[in-house]
Protein backbone atom coordinates (compact mmCIF):
# COMPACT_ATOMS: atom_id res chain seq x y z
CA UNK A 1 0.00 0.00 0.00
CA UNK A 2 1.40 3.38 -0.95
CA UNK A 3 1.39 6.19 1.52
CA UNK A 4 1.62 9.87 0.55
CA UNK A 5 2.83 12.69 2.68
CA UNK A 6 3.30 16.34 1.91
CA UNK A 7 6.81 17.72 2.05
CA UNK A 8 8.08 20.92 3.64
CA UNK A 9 10.35 22.93 1.40
CA UNK A 10 12.33 25.94 2.50
CA UNK A 11 12.73 28.65 -0.16
CA UNK A 12 15.10 31.45 0.73
CA UNK A 13 16.34 33.72 2.19
CA UNK A 14 19.49 32.76 0.28
CA UNK A 15 17.69 32.00 -2.94
CA UNK A 16 18.24 34.31 -5.94
CA UNK A 17 14.52 34.71 -6.65
CA UNK A 18 13.83 35.70 -3.03
CA UNK A 19 16.28 38.62 -3.33
CA UNK A 20 18.05 37.29 -0.27
CA UNK A 21 15.52 38.75 2.13
CA UNK A 22 12.40 36.56 2.19
CA UNK A 23 11.91 33.08 3.50
CA UNK A 24 8.98 31.01 2.30
CA UNK A 25 8.20 27.76 4.00
CA UNK A 26 6.23 25.85 1.42
CA UNK A 27 4.26 22.71 1.99
CA UNK A 28 4.21 20.78 -1.26
CA UNK A 29 2.33 17.74 -2.40
CA UNK A 30 4.35 16.64 -5.40
CA UNK A 31 4.45 19.79 -7.51
CA UNK A 32 1.37 21.36 -5.93
CA UNK A 33 1.60 23.99 -3.21
CA UNK A 34 -0.60 23.19 -0.22
CA UNK A 35 0.47 25.88 2.18
CA UNK A 36 2.86 28.80 2.46
CA UNK A 37 4.28 30.59 5.45
CA UNK A 38 6.02 33.89 4.71
CA UNK A 39 8.82 35.09 6.95
CA UNK A 40 10.03 38.66 6.59
CA UNK A 41 12.28 40.98 8.57
CA UNK A 42 15.69 40.10 7.18
CA UNK A 43 16.31 43.70 6.10
CA UNK A 44 14.90 45.44 9.17
CA UNK A 45 16.99 48.56 9.83
CA UNK A 46 14.81 50.32 12.41
CA UNK A 47 13.74 53.13 10.08
CA UNK A 48 10.91 54.27 12.33
CA UNK A 49 13.05 54.20 15.47
CA UNK A 50 15.94 56.08 13.86
CA UNK A 51 13.62 58.79 12.56
CA UNK A 52 12.67 59.55 16.16
CA UNK A 53 16.29 60.34 16.95
CA UNK A 54 17.01 62.87 14.17
CA UNK A 55 15.52 66.16 13.05
CA UNK A 56 12.83 66.26 10.37
CA UNK A 57 15.18 67.23 7.54
CA UNK A 58 17.57 64.46 8.50
CA UNK A 59 14.94 61.80 7.85
CA UNK A 60 15.24 62.23 4.08
CA UNK A 61 18.35 60.05 3.69
CA UNK A 62 16.49 57.32 5.59
CA UNK A 63 13.47 57.59 3.30
CA UNK A 64 15.73 57.12 0.26
CA UNK A 65 16.38 53.65 1.54
CA UNK A 66 12.76 52.59 1.89
CA UNK A 67 11.82 51.79 -1.67
CA UNK A 68 15.26 52.01 -3.20
CA UNK A 69 13.99 51.54 -6.74
CA UNK A 70 11.90 54.71 -6.64
CA UNK A 71 13.44 56.76 -3.81
CA UNK A 72 12.09 60.08 -5.08
CA UNK A 73 8.50 59.08 -4.33
CA UNK A 74 9.45 58.32 -0.72
CA UNK A 75 11.12 61.72 -0.44
CA UNK A 76 8.02 63.42 -1.83
CA UNK A 77 5.69 61.51 0.49
CA UNK A 78 7.65 62.36 3.59
CA UNK A 79 7.99 66.03 2.63
CA UNK A 80 4.27 66.32 1.90
CA UNK A 81 3.39 64.82 5.26
CA UNK A 82 5.63 67.24 7.16
CA UNK A 83 4.27 70.12 5.09
CA UNK A 84 0.74 69.05 5.96
CA UNK A 85 1.72 69.04 9.62
CA UNK A 86 3.24 72.52 9.25
CA UNK A 87 0.36 73.73 7.08
CA UNK A 88 2.50 75.23 4.32
CA UNK A 89 2.14 75.40 0.55
CA UNK A 90 5.02 75.10 -1.87
CA UNK A 91 5.51 77.08 -5.12
CA UNK A 92 4.01 75.82 -8.37
CA UNK A 93 7.32 75.10 -9.99
CA UNK A 94 8.42 72.91 -7.10
CA UNK A 95 5.15 70.96 -7.37
CA UNK A 96 5.77 70.26 -11.04
CA UNK A 97 9.37 69.25 -10.37
CA UNK A 98 8.20 66.84 -7.69
CA UNK A 99 5.65 65.29 -10.03
CA UNK A 100 8.17 64.95 -12.87
CA UNK A 101 10.68 63.25 -10.60
CA UNK A 102 8.02 60.99 -9.04
CA UNK A 103 6.81 59.82 -12.43
CA UNK A 104 10.35 59.14 -13.64
CA UNK A 105 10.81 57.04 -10.52
CA UNK A 106 7.58 55.18 -11.10
CA UNK A 107 8.78 54.17 -14.56
CA UNK A 108 12.15 53.01 -13.21
CA UNK A 109 10.34 50.97 -10.59
CA UNK A 110 8.01 49.26 -13.06
CA UNK A 111 10.90 48.66 -15.46
CA UNK A 112 12.86 46.95 -12.71
CA UNK A 113 9.91 44.84 -11.63
CA UNK A 114 9.06 43.57 -15.10
CA UNK A 115 12.72 43.13 -16.00
CA UNK A 116 13.47 41.09 -12.91
CA UNK A 117 10.41 38.90 -13.14
CA UNK A 118 11.04 38.26 -16.84
CA UNK A 119 14.61 37.32 -16.07
CA UNK A 120 13.47 34.92 -13.40
CA UNK A 121 11.39 33.23 -16.10
CA UNK A 122 14.47 32.99 -18.28
CA UNK A 123 14.02 36.04 -20.52
CA UNK A 124 17.50 37.45 -20.06
CA UNK A 125 17.44 39.81 -23.04
CA UNK A 126 14.28 41.51 -21.77
CA UNK A 127 16.10 42.16 -18.53
CA UNK A 128 19.02 43.75 -20.33
CA UNK A 129 16.81 45.92 -22.55
CA UNK A 130 14.77 47.20 -19.63
CA UNK A 131 17.78 47.89 -17.48
CA UNK A 132 19.12 49.87 -20.42
CA UNK A 133 15.91 51.93 -20.41
CA UNK A 134 16.16 52.39 -16.67
CA UNK A 135 19.69 53.61 -17.15
CA UNK A 136 18.42 56.40 -19.43
CA UNK A 137 16.05 57.51 -16.70
CA UNK A 138 18.69 57.24 -14.00
CA UNK A 139 20.77 59.60 -16.12
CA UNK A 140 17.94 62.12 -15.88
CA UNK A 141 17.71 61.64 -12.13
CA UNK A 142 21.45 62.02 -11.90
CA UNK A 143 21.38 65.25 -13.88
CA UNK A 144 18.99 66.87 -11.43
CA UNK A 145 19.81 65.34 -8.08
CA UNK A 146 23.49 64.53 -8.47
CA UNK A 147 22.93 60.93 -7.38
CA UNK A 148 21.30 57.84 -8.79
CA UNK A 149 19.85 56.03 -5.84
CA UNK A 150 20.31 57.72 -2.49
CA UNK A 151 19.20 61.04 -3.87
CA UNK A 152 17.83 62.97 -0.82
CA UNK A 153 16.52 65.49 -3.29
CA UNK A 154 13.28 66.79 -1.85
CA UNK A 155 13.31 69.33 0.96
CA UNK A 156 10.58 70.34 3.35
CA UNK A 157 9.05 73.35 1.62
CA UNK A 158 10.48 72.63 -1.81
CA UNK A 159 13.25 70.73 -3.55
CA UNK A 160 17.01 70.92 -3.34
CA UNK A 161 17.80 72.20 -6.81
CA UNK A 162 16.05 73.54 -9.86
CA UNK A 163 15.95 71.71 -13.19
CA UNK A 164 19.03 72.15 -15.34
CA UNK A 165 18.66 74.47 -18.38
CA UNK A 166 18.35 71.83 -21.10
CA UNK A 167 16.52 69.30 -19.00
CA UNK A 168 13.25 69.21 -20.92
CA UNK A 169 15.06 68.35 -24.17
CA UNK A 170 17.11 65.65 -22.49
CA UNK A 171 13.96 64.23 -20.95
CA UNK A 172 12.14 64.11 -24.29
CA UNK A 173 15.08 62.27 -25.85
CA UNK A 174 15.20 59.73 -23.05
CA UNK A 175 11.44 59.27 -23.08
CA UNK A 176 11.63 58.44 -26.78
CA UNK A 177 14.34 55.88 -26.00
CA UNK A 178 12.29 54.35 -23.20
CA UNK A 179 9.25 54.10 -25.48
CA UNK A 180 11.38 52.26 -28.04
CA UNK A 181 12.43 49.76 -25.38
CA UNK A 182 8.84 49.31 -24.25
CA UNK A 183 7.81 48.44 -27.80
CA UNK A 184 10.68 45.96 -28.05
CA UNK A 185 9.76 44.35 -24.76
CA UNK A 186 6.11 44.28 -25.71
CA UNK A 187 7.08 42.37 -28.87
CA UNK A 188 9.28 39.99 -26.93
CA UNK A 189 6.90 39.21 -24.08
CA UNK A 190 3.28 39.97 -24.85
CA UNK A 191 3.09 37.73 -27.90
CA UNK A 192 5.46 35.18 -26.45
CA UNK A 193 3.71 31.83 -26.02
CA UNK A 194 5.96 30.67 -23.19
CA UNK A 195 5.67 33.90 -21.22
CA UNK A 196 1.92 34.13 -21.86
CA UNK A 197 1.21 30.59 -20.71
CA UNK A 198 3.34 30.92 -17.63
CA UNK A 199 1.66 34.17 -16.56
CA UNK A 200 -1.98 33.59 -17.53
CA UNK A 201 -4.27 32.44 -14.71
CA UNK A 202 -1.34 32.09 -12.34
CA UNK A 203 -1.15 33.76 -8.95
CA UNK A 204 -4.76 34.87 -9.02
CA UNK A 205 -6.35 36.95 -6.29
CA UNK A 206 -9.96 38.04 -6.13
CA UNK A 207 -11.18 41.62 -5.81
CA UNK A 208 -12.65 40.97 -2.35
CA UNK A 209 -9.51 39.33 -1.02
CA UNK A 210 -7.34 42.14 -2.34
CA UNK A 211 -9.48 44.80 -0.67
CA UNK A 212 -9.71 42.90 2.59
CA UNK A 213 -5.92 42.56 2.65
CA UNK A 214 -5.59 46.31 2.11
CA UNK A 215 -3.69 45.86 -1.14
CA UNK A 216 -3.28 48.96 -3.29
CA UNK A 217 -1.42 49.95 -6.43
CA UNK A 218 -0.95 47.91 -9.63
CA UNK A 219 -1.64 44.72 -7.69
CA UNK A 220 -5.12 45.92 -6.73
CA UNK A 221 -5.81 47.50 -10.11
CA UNK A 222 -5.02 44.21 -11.84
CA UNK A 223 -8.12 42.80 -10.17
CA UNK A 224 -10.26 45.56 -11.69
CA UNK A 225 -10.64 47.88 -8.70
CA UNK A 226 -10.07 51.45 -9.79
CA UNK A 227 -8.18 52.99 -6.89
CA UNK A 228 -5.25 55.30 -7.43
CA UNK A 229 -4.32 57.96 -4.89
CA UNK A 230 -3.44 60.32 -7.72
CA UNK A 231 -7.10 60.26 -8.83
CA UNK A 232 -8.89 59.62 -5.54
CA UNK A 233 -7.06 62.21 -3.42
CA UNK A 234 -5.05 64.27 -5.90
CA UNK A 235 -1.99 65.86 -4.37
CA UNK A 236 0.51 68.31 -5.86
CA UNK A 237 -0.77 69.00 -9.39
CA UNK A 238 -2.10 65.57 -10.43
CA UNK A 239 -5.60 67.03 -10.84
CA UNK A 240 -4.32 69.12 -13.76
CA UNK A 241 -2.87 66.18 -15.65
CA UNK A 242 -4.75 64.04 -18.12
CA UNK A 243 -4.06 60.37 -17.46
CA UNK A 244 -5.86 57.08 -17.23
CA UNK A 245 -5.79 54.33 -14.65
CA UNK A 246 -5.08 51.04 -16.43
CA UNK A 247 -7.17 48.21 -15.02
CA UNK A 248 -6.99 44.45 -15.25
CA UNK A 249 -9.83 41.97 -14.99
CA UNK A 250 -8.72 38.69 -13.45
CA UNK A 251 -5.93 39.67 -11.06
CA UNK A 252 -3.43 37.15 -12.37
CA UNK A 253 0.25 37.64 -13.16
CA UNK A 254 -0.44 38.53 -16.77
CA UNK A 255 -2.82 41.31 -15.76
CA UNK A 256 -0.26 42.74 -13.40
CA UNK A 257 2.25 42.73 -16.23
CA UNK A 258 -0.21 44.55 -18.51
CA UNK A 259 -1.15 47.08 -15.83
CA UNK A 260 2.49 47.93 -15.18
CA UNK A 261 3.26 48.24 -18.90
CA UNK A 262 0.28 50.55 -19.43
CA UNK A 263 1.13 52.60 -16.34
CA UNK A 264 4.60 53.32 -17.64
CA UNK A 265 3.10 54.84 -20.77
CA UNK A 266 0.74 56.95 -18.64
CA UNK A 267 3.65 58.15 -16.52
CA UNK A 268 5.63 59.15 -19.59
CA UNK A 269 2.59 61.07 -20.83
CA UNK A 270 2.35 62.84 -17.49
CA UNK A 271 5.99 63.90 -17.65
CA UNK A 272 5.39 65.39 -21.11
CA UNK A 273 2.34 67.29 -19.89
CA UNK A 274 4.29 68.63 -16.92
CA UNK A 275 6.91 70.11 -19.21
CA UNK A 276 4.19 71.91 -21.12
CA UNK A 277 2.57 73.32 -17.98
CA UNK A 278 5.52 74.04 -15.72
CA UNK A 279 5.90 77.76 -14.93
CA UNK A 280 9.18 79.41 -15.83
CA UNK A 281 11.73 79.38 -13.07
CA UNK A 282 15.15 80.93 -13.42
CA UNK A 283 15.55 84.55 -14.36
CA UNK A 284 17.84 84.65 -17.35
CA UNK A 285 20.56 87.19 -16.95
CA UNK A 286 24.17 87.52 -17.87
CA UNK A 287 26.20 86.43 -14.88
CA UNK A 288 29.61 86.67 -16.55
CA UNK A 289 32.07 88.11 -14.12
CA UNK A 290 29.59 88.00 -11.25
CA UNK A 291 30.27 84.45 -10.08
CA UNK A 292 32.45 84.39 -6.98
CA UNK A 293 33.92 81.26 -5.39
CA UNK A 294 32.35 80.50 -2.01
CA UNK A 295 35.60 80.95 -0.09
CA UNK A 296 36.10 84.45 -1.51
CA UNK A 297 32.53 85.40 -0.75
CA UNK A 298 32.88 84.27 2.86
CA UNK A 299 36.17 86.17 3.26
CA UNK A 300 34.78 89.37 1.86
CA UNK A 301 31.63 89.05 3.93
CA UNK A 302 33.76 88.77 7.07
CA UNK A 303 35.25 92.16 6.19
CA UNK A 304 31.79 93.61 5.82
CA UNK A 305 31.97 94.06 2.06
CA UNK A 306 28.50 92.65 1.58
CA UNK A 307 26.97 95.49 -0.39
CA UNK A 308 29.19 94.74 -3.40
CA UNK A 309 27.82 91.33 -4.15
CA UNK A 310 24.12 91.94 -4.00
CA UNK A 311 23.86 90.93 -7.65
CA UNK A 312 26.59 88.31 -7.53
CA UNK A 313 26.20 84.57 -7.56
CA UNK A 314 28.27 82.14 -5.56
CA UNK A 315 30.04 79.26 -7.27
CA UNK A 316 28.96 76.24 -5.28
CA UNK A 317 30.05 72.67 -5.27
CA UNK A 318 28.28 70.41 -7.77
CA UNK A 319 25.95 68.85 -5.20
CA UNK A 320 24.44 72.28 -4.46
CA UNK A 321 24.10 73.48 -8.05
CA UNK A 322 20.66 74.82 -8.80
CA UNK A 323 20.04 75.95 -5.24
CA UNK A 324 21.58 79.41 -5.51
CA UNK A 325 19.65 82.68 -5.28
CA UNK A 326 18.54 82.86 -8.87
CA UNK A 327 16.70 79.54 -8.52
CA UNK A 328 15.92 79.52 -4.82
CA UNK A 329 12.61 81.37 -4.65
CA UNK A 330 10.96 79.52 -7.52
CA UNK A 331 11.47 76.11 -5.94
CA UNK A 332 11.13 76.82 -2.22
CA UNK A 333 8.29 78.04 -0.05
CA UNK A 334 8.69 81.54 1.33
CA UNK A 335 9.07 80.33 4.91
CA UNK A 336 12.26 81.20 6.68
CA UNK A 337 11.44 78.95 9.61
CA UNK A 338 11.37 75.89 7.34
CA UNK A 339 13.51 76.45 4.26
CA UNK A 340 17.27 76.90 4.17
CA UNK A 341 18.27 80.29 2.69
CA UNK A 342 19.90 80.66 -0.74
CA UNK A 343 23.61 79.95 -0.59
CA UNK A 344 24.55 83.58 -1.30
CA UNK A 345 22.79 84.57 1.89
CA UNK A 346 24.42 81.80 3.91
CA UNK A 347 27.90 82.77 2.76
CA UNK A 348 27.40 86.47 2.26
CA UNK A 349 25.44 87.94 5.17
CA UNK A 350 24.87 87.34 8.83
CA UNK A 351 21.08 87.04 8.58
CA UNK A 352 21.35 84.21 6.08
CA UNK A 353 24.03 82.47 8.11
CA UNK A 354 21.92 82.65 11.26
CA UNK A 355 18.91 81.41 9.39
CA UNK A 356 20.94 78.47 8.13
CA UNK A 357 22.20 77.54 11.57
CA UNK A 358 18.80 77.98 13.17
CA UNK A 359 17.62 75.22 10.88
CA UNK A 360 20.50 72.77 11.14
CA UNK A 361 21.43 72.91 14.85
CA UNK A 362 20.01 70.36 17.25
CA UNK A 363 17.30 71.83 19.40
CA UNK A 364 16.45 74.41 16.75
CA UNK A 365 15.34 73.12 13.33
CA UNK A 366 11.77 72.83 12.15
CA UNK A 367 9.10 72.85 14.83
CA UNK A 368 5.71 71.62 13.61
CA UNK A 369 2.82 72.22 16.01
CA UNK A 370 1.66 69.44 18.33
CA UNK A 371 -0.50 67.14 16.25
CA UNK A 372 -0.57 64.30 13.81
CA UNK A 373 -1.00 63.91 10.08
CA UNK A 374 -1.32 61.09 7.59
CA UNK A 375 -0.46 61.75 3.99
CA UNK A 376 -0.90 59.10 1.28
CA UNK A 377 0.90 59.30 -2.05
CA UNK A 378 0.79 56.81 -4.89
CA UNK A 379 4.03 54.89 -4.69
CA UNK A 380 5.11 52.53 -7.41
CA UNK A 381 3.69 49.58 -5.46
CA UNK A 382 0.59 51.28 -4.13
CA UNK A 383 -0.43 53.69 -1.44
CA UNK A 384 2.64 54.92 0.39
CA UNK A 385 1.45 56.69 3.51
CA UNK A 386 3.41 58.60 6.08
CA UNK A 387 1.89 59.11 9.53
CA UNK A 388 3.81 61.58 11.64
CA UNK A 389 3.10 62.59 15.21
CA UNK A 390 4.70 65.80 16.39
CA UNK A 391 5.13 66.91 19.97
CA UNK A 392 6.17 70.42 18.99
CA UNK A 393 9.90 69.76 19.19
CA UNK A 394 12.45 69.54 16.40
CA UNK A 395 12.51 65.71 16.46
CA UNK A 396 9.50 63.79 15.21
CA UNK A 397 7.74 61.93 18.00
CA UNK A 398 6.70 59.09 15.74
CA UNK A 399 7.17 58.42 12.04
CA UNK A 400 5.16 55.58 10.61
CA UNK A 401 5.36 54.40 7.03
CA UNK A 402 2.57 52.45 5.48
CA UNK A 403 4.62 50.35 3.08
CA UNK A 404 2.61 49.28 0.02
CA UNK A 405 4.17 45.85 -0.37
CA UNK A 406 3.59 44.83 3.25
CA UNK A 407 -0.09 43.90 2.71
CA UNK A 408 0.78 42.27 -0.61
CA UNK A 409 3.28 40.00 1.08
CA UNK A 410 0.67 39.15 3.71
CA UNK A 411 -1.65 38.06 0.90
CA UNK A 412 1.02 36.10 -0.96
CA UNK A 413 -0.14 32.70 0.39
CA UNK A 414 -3.56 33.45 -1.14
CA UNK A 415 -1.95 33.75 -4.58
CA UNK A 416 0.32 30.74 -4.23
CA UNK A 417 -1.72 28.01 -2.55
CA UNK A 418 -3.23 25.64 -5.08
CA UNK A 419 -0.71 26.55 -7.73
CA UNK A 420 2.38 24.77 -8.95
CA UNK A 421 5.77 25.01 -7.32
CA UNK A 422 7.35 26.33 -10.53
CA UNK A 423 4.91 29.26 -10.59
CA UNK A 424 6.07 30.46 -7.20
CA UNK A 425 8.91 32.44 -8.70
CA UNK A 426 6.72 34.07 -11.35
CA UNK A 427 4.09 35.13 -8.81
CA UNK A 428 6.65 36.36 -6.33
CA UNK A 429 8.26 38.43 -9.07
CA UNK A 430 4.95 40.09 -9.91
CA UNK A 431 4.49 41.27 -6.31
CA UNK A 432 7.45 43.64 -6.78
CA UNK A 433 8.58 43.02 -3.24
CA UNK A 434 11.01 45.74 -2.17
CA UNK A 435 12.55 44.65 1.09
CA UNK A 436 13.65 48.17 1.97
CA UNK A 437 10.08 49.31 2.49
CA UNK A 438 8.73 45.93 3.55
CA UNK A 439 11.07 45.50 6.51
CA UNK A 440 11.99 49.16 7.00
Amino acid at each position, binding site marked *: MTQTRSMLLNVGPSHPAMHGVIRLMVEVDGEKIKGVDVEIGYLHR*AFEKMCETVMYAQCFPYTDRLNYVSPLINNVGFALCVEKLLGIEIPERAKYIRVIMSEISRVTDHLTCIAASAMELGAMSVFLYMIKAREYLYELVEEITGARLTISYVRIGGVKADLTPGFADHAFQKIAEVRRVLIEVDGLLTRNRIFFDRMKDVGKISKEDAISHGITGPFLRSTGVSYDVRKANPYLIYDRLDFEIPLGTTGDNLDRYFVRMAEMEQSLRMIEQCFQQIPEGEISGDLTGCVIPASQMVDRAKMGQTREFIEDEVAVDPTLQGSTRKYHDAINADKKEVVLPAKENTYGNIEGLMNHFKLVMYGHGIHPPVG*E*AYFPVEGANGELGFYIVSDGRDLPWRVRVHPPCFPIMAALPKCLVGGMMADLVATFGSVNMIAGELDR
Partner: protein
Amino acid sequence: MTPGQIVQEQFSQQMIEAHDFRGDQTLIIQAPALRAVALFLKEKPELDFNFLMDLTAVDYLFFAGGRVAKAWRFEVVYHFYSLKHNQRLRLKVPVEEKNPEVETLCDLWASANWYEREVWDMFGIRFKGHPNLKRILMYEEFKGHALRKDYPFNKRQPLIGPQY
Protein backbone atom coordinates in the same frame (compact mmCIF):
# COMPACT_ATOMS: atom_id res chain seq x y z
CA MET B 1 -22.65 64.56 7.56
CA THR B 2 -19.04 63.42 7.72
CA PRO B 3 -18.23 59.83 8.71
CA GLY B 4 -16.76 61.14 11.95
CA GLN B 5 -20.04 62.79 12.89
CA ILE B 6 -22.06 59.68 12.06
CA VAL B 7 -19.90 57.56 14.34
CA GLN B 8 -19.92 60.21 17.07
CA GLU B 9 -23.71 60.29 17.03
CA GLN B 10 -24.03 56.52 17.22
CA PHE B 11 -21.36 56.00 19.89
CA SER B 12 -21.56 59.23 21.88
CA GLN B 13 -21.19 57.29 25.16
CA GLN B 14 -17.92 55.62 24.17
CA MET B 15 -16.32 58.68 22.59
CA ILE B 16 -13.33 60.20 24.39
CA GLU B 17 -12.26 62.89 21.94
CA ALA B 18 -12.69 63.95 18.34
CA HIS B 19 -10.74 66.41 16.22
CA ASP B 20 -9.87 67.09 12.62
CA PHE B 21 -6.40 68.56 12.75
CA ARG B 22 -5.28 69.48 9.19
CA GLY B 23 -8.42 67.89 7.79
CA ASP B 24 -7.77 64.37 9.12
CA GLN B 25 -10.93 63.21 10.84
CA THR B 26 -9.86 61.58 14.08
CA LEU B 27 -11.85 59.82 16.77
CA ILE B 28 -10.57 58.48 20.06
CA ILE B 29 -12.82 55.82 21.50
CA GLN B 30 -12.78 53.64 24.58
CA ALA B 31 -11.06 50.30 24.04
CA PRO B 32 -14.07 48.07 24.90
CA ALA B 33 -16.09 49.70 22.12
CA LEU B 34 -13.49 49.03 19.44
CA ARG B 35 -15.07 46.03 17.79
CA ALA B 36 -18.54 47.53 17.82
CA VAL B 37 -17.29 50.72 16.19
CA ALA B 38 -15.17 48.80 13.68
CA LEU B 39 -18.12 46.64 12.70
CA PHE B 40 -20.27 49.75 12.36
CA LEU B 41 -17.67 51.37 10.12
CA LYS B 42 -17.52 48.33 7.92
CA GLU B 43 -21.19 47.39 7.71
CA LYS B 44 -23.04 50.73 7.65
CA PRO B 45 -23.76 51.57 3.99
CA GLU B 46 -23.23 55.31 4.49
CA LEU B 47 -19.72 54.59 5.80
CA ASP B 48 -18.59 51.41 4.04
CA PHE B 49 -14.97 51.53 5.14
CA ASN B 50 -13.77 48.51 3.21
CA PHE B 51 -10.03 49.21 3.56
CA LEU B 52 -8.13 49.02 6.81
CA MET B 53 -5.30 50.97 5.27
CA ASP B 54 -2.94 51.15 8.17
CA LEU B 55 -2.71 50.02 11.75
CA THR B 56 0.01 51.16 14.08
CA ALA B 57 0.60 52.38 17.60
CA VAL B 58 2.21 55.36 19.28
CA ASP B 59 3.97 55.39 22.63
CA TYR B 60 3.27 58.61 24.55
CA LEU B 61 5.69 58.03 27.41
CA PHE B 62 7.12 61.47 28.39
CA PHE B 63 5.30 63.06 25.46
CA ALA B 64 6.70 66.54 24.73
CA GLY B 65 9.06 66.18 27.65
CA GLY B 66 6.13 65.62 30.00
CA ARG B 67 4.54 69.01 29.23
CA VAL B 68 1.49 67.46 27.59
CA ALA B 69 -0.27 65.19 30.05
CA LYS B 70 -1.66 61.96 28.65
CA ALA B 71 -3.94 59.75 30.70
CA TRP B 72 -2.70 56.63 28.92
CA ARG B 73 0.59 55.42 27.60
CA PHE B 74 -0.16 53.92 24.18
CA GLU B 75 -2.59 54.61 21.40
CA VAL B 76 -3.39 52.05 18.73
CA VAL B 77 -4.09 53.97 15.54
CA TYR B 78 -6.30 52.69 12.74
CA HIS B 79 -6.53 54.38 9.35
CA PHE B 80 -9.66 53.43 7.44
CA TYR B 81 -10.46 54.20 3.85
CA SER B 82 -13.78 53.88 2.05
CA LEU B 83 -13.39 53.20 -1.64
CA LYS B 84 -17.03 53.93 -2.40
CA HIS B 85 -17.25 57.28 -0.64
CA ASN B 86 -13.57 58.20 -0.98
CA GLN B 87 -13.37 59.05 2.72
CA ARG B 88 -10.70 58.52 5.31
CA LEU B 89 -11.07 58.15 9.04
CA ARG B 90 -8.55 57.74 11.81
CA LEU B 91 -9.62 55.81 14.85
CA LYS B 92 -7.53 55.73 18.00
CA VAL B 93 -7.83 53.49 21.01
CA PRO B 94 -6.02 54.28 24.27
CA VAL B 95 -4.12 51.42 25.85
CA GLU B 96 -2.91 51.33 29.45
CA GLU B 97 0.65 50.41 30.30
CA LYS B 98 -0.42 47.81 32.87
CA ASN B 99 -2.46 45.60 30.61
CA PRO B 100 -1.65 46.46 27.00
CA GLU B 101 -4.37 44.56 25.22
CA VAL B 102 -7.03 45.37 22.62
CA GLU B 103 -9.39 43.25 20.57
CA THR B 104 -8.23 41.97 17.22
CA LEU B 105 -9.80 43.05 13.93
CA CYS B 106 -8.34 40.11 11.97
CA ASP B 107 -11.70 38.58 11.16
CA LEU B 108 -13.08 41.86 9.78
CA TRP B 109 -10.11 42.95 7.65
CA ALA B 110 -7.46 40.44 6.64
CA SER B 111 -4.88 43.22 6.56
CA ALA B 112 -5.08 43.52 10.35
CA ASN B 113 -3.32 40.18 10.74
CA TRP B 114 0.22 41.28 9.89
CA TYR B 115 -0.22 44.85 11.15
CA GLU B 116 -1.24 43.57 14.56
CA ARG B 117 1.74 41.25 14.62
CA GLU B 118 3.94 44.24 13.87
CA VAL B 119 2.39 46.27 16.69
CA TRP B 120 2.92 43.35 19.08
CA ASP B 121 6.52 43.07 17.90
CA MET B 122 7.34 46.76 18.19
CA PHE B 123 5.15 47.90 21.10
CA GLY B 124 4.24 44.78 23.02
CA ILE B 125 0.52 45.40 22.71
CA ARG B 126 -1.41 42.13 22.63
CA PHE B 127 -4.41 41.59 20.38
CA LYS B 128 -7.05 39.40 21.95
CA GLY B 129 -8.25 36.71 19.57
CA HIS B 130 -5.43 37.04 17.08
CA PRO B 131 -4.78 33.63 15.48
CA ASN B 132 -1.01 33.88 15.20
CA LEU B 133 0.38 36.65 17.39
CA LYS B 134 4.13 36.28 17.01
CA ARG B 135 6.94 38.64 16.10
CA ILE B 136 7.21 39.62 12.46
CA LEU B 137 10.16 41.96 11.86
CA MET B 138 12.35 40.91 14.77
CA TYR B 139 13.38 37.39 15.70
CA GLU B 140 11.66 35.35 18.37
CA GLU B 141 14.59 35.59 20.81
CA PHE B 142 14.51 39.40 20.77
CA LYS B 143 13.95 40.86 24.23
CA GLY B 144 11.77 43.93 24.66
CA HIS B 145 9.80 45.92 22.13
CA ALA B 146 11.91 48.21 20.02
CA LEU B 147 9.59 51.15 19.31
CA ARG B 148 8.71 51.73 22.95
CA LYS B 149 10.15 55.01 24.11
CA ASP B 150 11.97 53.36 27.02
CA TYR B 151 13.87 51.08 24.64
CA PRO B 152 17.19 52.83 23.85
CA PHE B 153 17.73 53.25 20.13
CA ASN B 154 21.39 52.23 20.39
CA LYS B 155 20.83 49.09 22.43
CA ARG B 156 22.16 46.00 20.70
CA GLN B 157 21.07 42.41 20.95
CA PRO B 158 23.25 40.38 18.63
CA LEU B 159 21.69 37.07 17.74
CA ILE B 160 24.99 35.50 16.71
CA GLY B 161 28.39 36.22 18.17
CA PRO B 162 29.66 37.23 21.59
CA GLN B 163 27.03 38.16 24.14
CA TYR B 164 27.61 41.48 25.85
